[in-house]
């Protein structure tokens, strides 16, 4: 049992990369910066693979969950006891493989994509920092350490969204992401306090043991804990009501959108719910809330994505929508289905973002799909890989998205009346998803080429005139991810669920249900047909350049305007939350707090000190005789006091009894 998995190496390696590039990167040649930046996640990936192979459930040499305490006790105060300990189990294995594997691919891609950017070293040091925190998040064995990673990925996300900090919109988007996430983190913190109050511990293991020891206790405090944690999850995973930061986060470089805002960080909320599922299972109300939030977000974001014209924004809203699916999966207690979708989504959404980045790169920075078209010939590799991603996300057999989405929808359908309702919401969302993804696909790659596209891009230098295919260093990750998007789902939910079941509980296996096999088949066919209908509608409207979409939009102007304005949610939040806060800060905190209390007390203190000083300085005349006079006067006063005291004490005056002897 002396097998050591060296889990601590997994976060530390990217951290070393961050330190090297962050401190020295400015002075290092570009090749060395890339080498360091790529070596760190690769090494971490290899450590993960070694750990997974060693601890594979079949090889029972290591008992899962394997807990590694790498730095002893962290906090030890009274009843509160928190360790720096990492845990490896089936769930964190899946997450680690996604994070370091997809993360490494995106690092490779970034070498090509960020090649001509200033601050190349800064970009890679942030990216490595992100991997450091993200691996801490999934490795943590207690909520507090997880929270460290949770906050840390928020920081890395903020830094990378605001990477082009000289552009005001990017800096604002970074701030928005940070502040909105902070609201969610507040919920997470409250949830942790409640956990501490209820269980006296923050360790997953001891909370799980405590829950197992008290079966049948439901609702009440568990509902409160779950709802608080859910607020945290909606913040990080961009769900209603805190999703508003994710579309703006597209201001960051595209590989960042792929890594942080599609594949890994935003799935932290789903991971957290799956990790805490034993508490969620005790609160049907909280689970129903999760499911409703998930389904509502999926539908809501999909409708917004229908009319977006910025290629990255379409993908951003589709990410929100897909995260909604994962929440729906968690909400119907099908955690392994949710994690399955998390995995396939990481593949195809990273692929879609990277392919979109390749298109943007090829057009010299153009992101508006209306100015694209006919790129099929110019960017063949990008076209084919993106096609794989689009088919995968639309959920068409046999691509990865089909299996995971189908699993979630099947589980939802099996989950009572509420589940059936949400199933139909999910089905409609699948239709919308298929439509807007193929709309994007047609607008970008089909139709006639627009020669003015590249020229009207933001810079008009020579390389922007002709759309050009990206270098191999960007295409290779695309190809790998395309293959993963195809085969990633073939393992099937049954096997995947069985693998995860020690951590997140068993999943309903259609083969074991009465009539489950047939129902599963029917639902799968329905889902695929729905996706094909979406494709067909997109084909009718966007295959050829026509005014059909415009006519369609003109037919329902109110709806179109509402969608184009994204339901004005940003504006509503602006008026109901941001503006009162700003005004409150300005008037209450600014005038009363700062003006009266802080400034007033400072002035009072300074004024009194000055006045006293002005009075006292008159004593310091520098005149020797005045000092001597004060000295003499002081001595006289002391003498007088002593004499009067002695007189008072004896009552009869000083007896100089030796006088006259």
């Amino acid at each position, binding site marked *: 049992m002396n097998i050591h998995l060296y889990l601590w190496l997994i976060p530390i390696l990217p951290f070393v990369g961050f330190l090297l590039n962050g401190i020295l990167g400015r002075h290092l040649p570009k090749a060395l910066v890339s080498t360091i930046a790529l070596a760190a996640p690769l090494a971490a990936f290899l450590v993960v693979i070694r750990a997974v192979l060693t601890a594979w459930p079949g090889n029972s040499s290591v008992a899962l969950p394997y807990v590694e305490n790498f730095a002893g006790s962290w906090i030890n105060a009274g009843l509160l006891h928190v360790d720096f300990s990492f845990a490896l189990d089936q769930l964190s294995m899946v997450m680690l493989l996604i994070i370091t594997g997809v993360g490494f691919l995106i690092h490779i891609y970034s070498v090509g994509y960020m090649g001509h950017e200033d601050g190349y070293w800064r970009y890679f040091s942030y990216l490595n920092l992100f991997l450091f925190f993200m691996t801490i998040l999934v490795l943590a064995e207690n909520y507090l350490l997880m929270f460290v990673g949770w906050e840390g990925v928020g920081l890395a996300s903020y830094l990378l969204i605001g990477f082009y900090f000289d552009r005001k919109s990017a800096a604002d988007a970074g701030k928005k992401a940070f502040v909105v996430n902070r609201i969610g983190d507040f919920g997470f913190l409250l949830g942790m306090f409640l956990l501490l109050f209820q269980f006296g511990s923050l360790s997953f293991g001891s909370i799980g043991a405590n829950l197992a020891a008290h079966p049948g206790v439901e609702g009440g405090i568990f509902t409160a804990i779950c709802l608080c944690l859910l607020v945290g999850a909606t913040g990080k995973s961009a769900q209603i009501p805190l999703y508003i930061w994710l579309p703006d986060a597209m201001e960051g470089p595209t590989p960042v959108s792929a890594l942080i805002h599609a594949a890994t960080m935003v799935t932290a909320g789903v991971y957290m719910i799956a990790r805490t599922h034993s508490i969620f299972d005790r609160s049907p109300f909280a689970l129903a809330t999760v499911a409703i939030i998930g389904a509502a977000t999926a539908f809501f974001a999909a409708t917004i994505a229908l009319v977006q014209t910025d290629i990255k924004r379409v993908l951003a809203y589709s990410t929100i929508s897909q995260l909604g699916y994962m929440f729906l999966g968690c909400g119907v207690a099908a955690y392994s289905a949710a994690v399955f979708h998390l995995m396939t989504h990481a593949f195809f959404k990273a692929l879609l973002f990277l392919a979109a980045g390749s298109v943007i790169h090829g057009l010299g920075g153009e992101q508006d799909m209306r100015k694209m078209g006919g790129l099929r010939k110019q960017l063949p590799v990008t076209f084919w890989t993106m096609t794989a991603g689009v088919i995968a996300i639309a959920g068409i057999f046999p691509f990865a998205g089909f299996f995971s989405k189908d699993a979630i929808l099947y589980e939802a359908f099996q989950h009572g009346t509420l589940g059936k309702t949400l199933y139909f919401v999910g089905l409609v969302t699948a239709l919308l998803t298929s439509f807007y993804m193929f709309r994007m696909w047609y607008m970008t790659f089909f139709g006639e080429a627009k020669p003015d596209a590249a020229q009207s891009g933001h810079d008009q230098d020579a390389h922007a005139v002709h759309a050009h295919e990206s270098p191999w260093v960007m295409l290779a990750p695309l190809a790998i991810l395309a293959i993963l998007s195809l085969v990633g789902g073939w393992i099937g939910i049954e096997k995947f669920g069985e693998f995860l079941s020690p951590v997140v509980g068993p999943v309903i296996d259609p083969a074991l249900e009465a009539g489950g096999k047939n129902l599963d088949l029917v639902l799968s066919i329905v889902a695929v047909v729905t996706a094909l209908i979406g494709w067909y509608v997109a084909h009718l409207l966007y295959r050829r350049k026509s005014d059909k979409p415009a006519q369609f939009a003109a037919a329902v102007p109110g709806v179109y305007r509402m969608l184009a304005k994204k339901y004005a949610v940003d504006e509503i939040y602006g008026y109901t939350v941001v503006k009162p806060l700003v005004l409150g800060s300005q008037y209450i905190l600014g005038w009363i707090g700062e003006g009266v209390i802080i400034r007033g007390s400072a002035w009072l203190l300074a004024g009194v000190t000055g006045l006293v000083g002005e009075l006292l300085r008159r004593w*310091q005349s520098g*005149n020797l005789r005045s000092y001597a006079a004060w000295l003499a006067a002081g001595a006289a006063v002391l003498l007088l006091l002593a004499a009067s005291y002695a007189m008072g004490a004896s009552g009869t005056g000083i007896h*100089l009894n030796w006088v006259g*002897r």
Partner: protein
Amino acid sequence: MMNAIPSSWYLILSALLFTLGVVGFLIKRSLITVFMSIELMLNAVNLSFVTFAHEWHQVKGQIFVFFVMMVAAAEAAVGLAIIIAIFRARATLNVDQIDLMKL
């Protein structure tokens, strides 16, 4: 000796000398006179030391007087040197004009 001059007379003389020293210190402007007033105060104290030592048959008072005389000698040496230095630098010994240390 028992019927000689009573001790209180010595003490009264000591007090008078001390007061004279204080008044001289306060009202005289010449640094030399101020310095002499200090010596006067020291010796007034010496006188009362000796008186008390005699009165209570304690030799400590006598010893203390020697200490004071020694300190006074040292003080005279240092003090006069300072006075000469001040005079050379400022060409005056008026204490009212030697006030460079005020704020």
